[in-house]
């Protein structure tokens, strides 16, 4: 078991492309940690630099208290599962799982027994003699996990572990992966571009953009209290409403699309009269009302999208330029063209100044199971 500490880790590719611009990060022992971001944000480079597949051009990597910055991947006590699983096509499943042990010069009988046992644990017992090409996507993923587990690494690194599975398998594999990580208790870092995957799996999430960390926190933190507008718009299955706002009423209210809304309590004393800010509120945190309400956004329904158990309603506000999305529970479906009001849950509203959150409150309680 091991923790990972990155100190000012940087990676500049020959030619001057800066993939990582000084990353400071600590992943705790036994933690399930997600690196989340859009493609090209440096998350894969970060994972590969931790693995040692890319050489850092600055800073250091410590795994389990040991400086591994200059060590080759094989000496870092890690195991990695690749996006395409990288199972060797010319070996059987058992041989694949036994391969890391073969490199570590474990005897044939012992490593085969160990590989069989690991395969059994992951429900691959009957597939040991098959070649990877004869397995389904989910089975290949398990075989790759088994191969990583067999050598008892201190750290698991998973590169887009679920992206090669079809949508249905993905949910199943997600639950499986989370359970497996809990049982093994191995520090695990995984890369994903899917925010739902990161929120569902990870104990903590690092959101990356342009080779830098934008926010590190529990799923609850990054969902409820995004540190910046980038994180706010990236996290959440329905994007957060980010609306132009101006502070009025002596700093007690903001004017959004012609309506006065109260300044959230955690930002109350931090804003100045007349200041231009961005008002952020998630569609889930807006309450729908058919009747006029005081502190609410008002508009005409332009689009209704069915989300299954709810509807995503788009309101065109009276000023003609602002549109707001509201999640409306399934028992009520506003018709297109009708007027409606969206009431923000005050404590969930957020204010952003120059792209970063205005707040005095500490981060919301972490919901990490003990």
């Amino acid at each position, binding site marked *: 078991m091991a923790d990972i500490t990155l100190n000012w880790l940087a990676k500049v590719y020959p030619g001057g492309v800066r993939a990582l611009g000084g990353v400071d990060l600590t992943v705790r022992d036994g933690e399930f940690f997600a690196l989340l971001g859009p493609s090209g944000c440096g998350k894969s480079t970060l994972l590969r630099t931790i*693995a*040692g*597949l890319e050489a850092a051009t600055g800073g250091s990597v410590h795994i389990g208290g040991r400086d591994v910055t200059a060590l*080759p*991947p*094989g*000496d870092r006590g*890690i*195991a*990695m599962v*690749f*996006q*395409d699983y*990288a199972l*060797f*096509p*010319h070996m059987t499943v058992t041989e694949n799982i036994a*391969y*890391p042990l073969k*490199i*570590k010069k474990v005897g044939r009988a012992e490593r085969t027994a160990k590989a069989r046992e690991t395969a059994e644990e992951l429900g691959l017992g009957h597939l040991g003699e098959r070649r990877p090409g004869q397995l389904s996507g989910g089975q290949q993923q398990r075989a790759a996990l088994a191969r990583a587990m067999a*050598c008892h690494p201190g750290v698991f690194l998973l590169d887009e572990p679920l992206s090669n599975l079809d949508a249905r398998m993905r949910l199943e594999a997600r639950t499986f992966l989370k359970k497996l990580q809990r049982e093994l208790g191995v520090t695990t870092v995984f890369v994903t571009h899917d925010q739902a995957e990161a929120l569902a799996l990870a104990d903590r999430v690092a959101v990356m953009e342009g080779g830098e960390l934008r926010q590190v926190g529990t799923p609850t933190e990054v969902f409820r209290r995004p540190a910046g507008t980038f994180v706010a718009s990236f996290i959440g299955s329905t994007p957060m409403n980010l609306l132009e706002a101006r502070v009025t009423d002596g700093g007690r209210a903001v004017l959004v699309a012609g309506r006065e809304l109260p300044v959230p309590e955690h930002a109350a004393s931090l804003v100045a009269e007349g200041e231009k800010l961005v008002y952020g509120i998630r569609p889930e945190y807006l309450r729908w009302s058919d009747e006029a309400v005081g502190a609410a956004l008002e508009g005409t329904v332009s689009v209704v999208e069915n989300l299954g158990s709810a509807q995503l309603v788009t309101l065109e506000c009276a000023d003609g330029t602002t549109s707001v999305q509201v999640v409306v529970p399934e028992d009520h479906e506003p018709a297109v063209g009708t007027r409606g009001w969206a009431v923000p849950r005050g404590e969930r509203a957020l204010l952003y100044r120059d792209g970063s959150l205005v707040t005095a409150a500490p981060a919301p309680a972490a919901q990490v199971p003990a």
Partner: protein
Amino acid sequence: MSAPTAPRPADDHGPGRGPVGQLLRGVGAYLLVALALGFFALPMLWLAAAPFDRHPGVTASLPEFTLDSFRRLWHNPNAVDSLASSLVLAVGSAVLVVGLSALAAYALSRVRLRGRDGLLYALLLLSSIVTGTAAMVPIFLLAAELNLVDSYLGVILVLTGGLLPAAIFILKDFMDTTPRSYEESARVFGASPLRVMKDVVVPVVRPGLATVGVWTVAQVWGNFLIPFLLLRSPDKSPAAVVMYTFYTEGGQPDLALISTFSLLYSLPVVLMFLFVSRRYGFRFHGGIKA
């Protein structure tokens, strides 16, 4: 619609559309195919029949059966040796070409290098000159300087040099289609570069290696010019060169010996193709992809 069993009126238009016309066209097509097949099959038939014929001619005919030609060939001082000599040259070149081109192709496929593709194309283009007639004089002089005239090594090196670029070109394609994640995965488990090559890369590109090996053997087996020029002693000459000596005193080609020797000469290559194709399966799909 009303009478579905009646022939459709369109079938009766013109003489070529009726059942007789269709039959004629069918016969014509088969005749054409048969002619084309015959054209290519006749030399094969001659090769199969002439060695067993008491009086072989240049036409394929049912042989007057005899094994005399084989007996004569067995007593010819150079014939059997030359097959062994061919084998030495072919296997030697194949080992060198496969080994060197695998290493070069792997490196070229994995290392980012400016002008890499240009280099490959230039090599490919030049290789046809290296083993061609144009460069024979300098190559001969070079071999003479290096004391490589009349040695197997000299022939093997020249042939290898000529075949390497194309071999690298073919193998690089195989290497390119091998995902890097295979190697990275092995590296993460602690495998050294040579180990990665041995455990992962070579097995994955094995069909490519087999292809290049077979291709090299076939090329060397059939090469006449270079061994003819570089090997001076008759007992070292490979089969392709020795065949050239089967003439009667009168200067007429000795068809009995030539046909018999041709059969023996082509058998090893055919057998090798069959073996390798069964063992590894050739993977040529529109070009040189794995």
